């Protein structure tokens, strides 16, 4: 027993290494799982608050481009409004109140922390559970397409699993052919302006410069623009096409995002959980 103790003491560097390294690995693996109980991330009060303070300067620097994007969106909305007003409504007398049928509602939030340089990027926003945000909601940016999906929520803050993440997989379709595929990022590419669409069946003709939109399966509403096809000849060795696209969204200057609340998501989940689990 004494010899054992001397042995352990002599090589304590190695044994301590094994203990601490195992804790590190366990934390990593647990963090990859869906359930996370410990909040050692940026929804944490201290870390979130620090990032919020730091963000003030960056916000000021980006005021110009934010103004431009808001003006652009305003112009688009005004145009759409004019188009509605321009319809000769004198002929129609039926007024249908559709407010009860709105499936998606938007909630604006400010980005307080963002990164584009890592393999798995996480965005933190300044709205949380008290504003009605739940894990799994879709997030888009103003007029430029998908940002990601809500991951962790604290009372006042929330983190978004950015599209620039190895776990991100969003159902999209090519607008002209309606071919379905899944949008992924990474894998031999860490340019934040490019992403890939996988699992498009071989028989579809893919045109360059075609736009890619969300398909509506999953938590994103249908028809949100994602990007433009820039390269279609990527061979991966399987029976599906892989296409490279240029994202509309510029993640490096992301300042404001919209969280999409789907009123029917709970109902849909409840309904689908009744189905027999087919494999």
């Amino acid at each position, binding site marked *: 027993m004494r010899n054992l103790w001397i042995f352990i003491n002599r090589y304590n560097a190695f044994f*301590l290494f094994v203990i*601490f390294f195992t804790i590190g690995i366990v934390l990593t693996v647990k*963090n990859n799982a869906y359930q996370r109980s410990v909040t050692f991330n940026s929804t944490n009060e201290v870390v979130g608050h620090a990032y919020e303070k730091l963000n003030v300067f960056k916000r000021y620097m980006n005021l110009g481009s934010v103004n431009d994007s808001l003006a652009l969106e305003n112009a688009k909305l005004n145009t759409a409004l004019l188009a509605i007003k321009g319809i000769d409504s004198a002929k129609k007398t039926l007024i249908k109140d559709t407010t009860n049928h709105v499936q998606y509602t938007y909630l604006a939030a400010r980005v307080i922390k963002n990164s584009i340089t890592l*393999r798995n990027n996480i965005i933190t926003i300044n709205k949380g559970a008290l504003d009605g945000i739940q894990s799994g909601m879709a997030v888009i940016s103003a007029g430029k397409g998908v940002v990601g999906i809500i991951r962790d929520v604290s009372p006042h803050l929330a*983190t978004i699993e950015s599209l620039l993440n190895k776990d991100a997989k969003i159902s999209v379709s090519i607008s002209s052919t309606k071919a379905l595929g899944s949008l992924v990022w990474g894998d031999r590419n860490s340019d934040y302006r490019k992403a890939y669409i996988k699992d498009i069946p071989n028989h579809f003709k893919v045109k360059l410069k075609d736009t890619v939109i969300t398909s509506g399966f999953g938590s994103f509403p249908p028809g949100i623009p994602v990007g433009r096809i820039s390269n279609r000849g990527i061979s991966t060795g399987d029976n599906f096409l892989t296409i490279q696209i240029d994202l509309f969204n510029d993640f490096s200057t992301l300042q404001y995002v919209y969280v999409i609340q789907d009123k029917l998501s709970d109902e849909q989940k409840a309904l689908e959980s009744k189905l027999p689990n087919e494999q």
Partner: protein
Amino acid sequence: MNSKIILINILRWFILLSIQVLLLRNLAFYDLATPFTYILFLLLLPFGTPNLILYLIAFGTGLTLDAFYDTLGVHTAACVMLVFVRILFISVTVSRDNFDEPEPTLGNMGFKWFALYALLCTFSHHLVLFLLEAFKLTELSYTLLRCLLSGIFTLFTVILIEFIFYNRKMR
């Protein structure tokens, strides 16, 4: 003397971690190489520190970085790996009896020793960091490329900082 060293190390911890979180977190060359200069703090811890304390400091530092990077466990494991390599390297190259110098800085130990020390520690740290971050063997070659380029970048900044403070620590 002893309290002065502790104070300097605490100060160094704050400065290097703030630089890492505020500045270097947003930096990347060609979306490939990102520097992790904060490991300089772990490299410069005094020679006489007990192993358990070293591991605890590395664990705490890694956990703090993870909170800011939203990657729980990745930096923690990498920092622990770095400290393990550090202990091995120092036990092989520096004799235990005469720690005439308190800290393994460039000025104290000479360029050759420090460069090899920093090289081994940086690459062991980065290897664990990038492999755990990717957590996929399908993109192994790409991950290793990122690891190599980032390691060179980190090493460059670490040695640069050491040269800037070279004369002041020289006795």
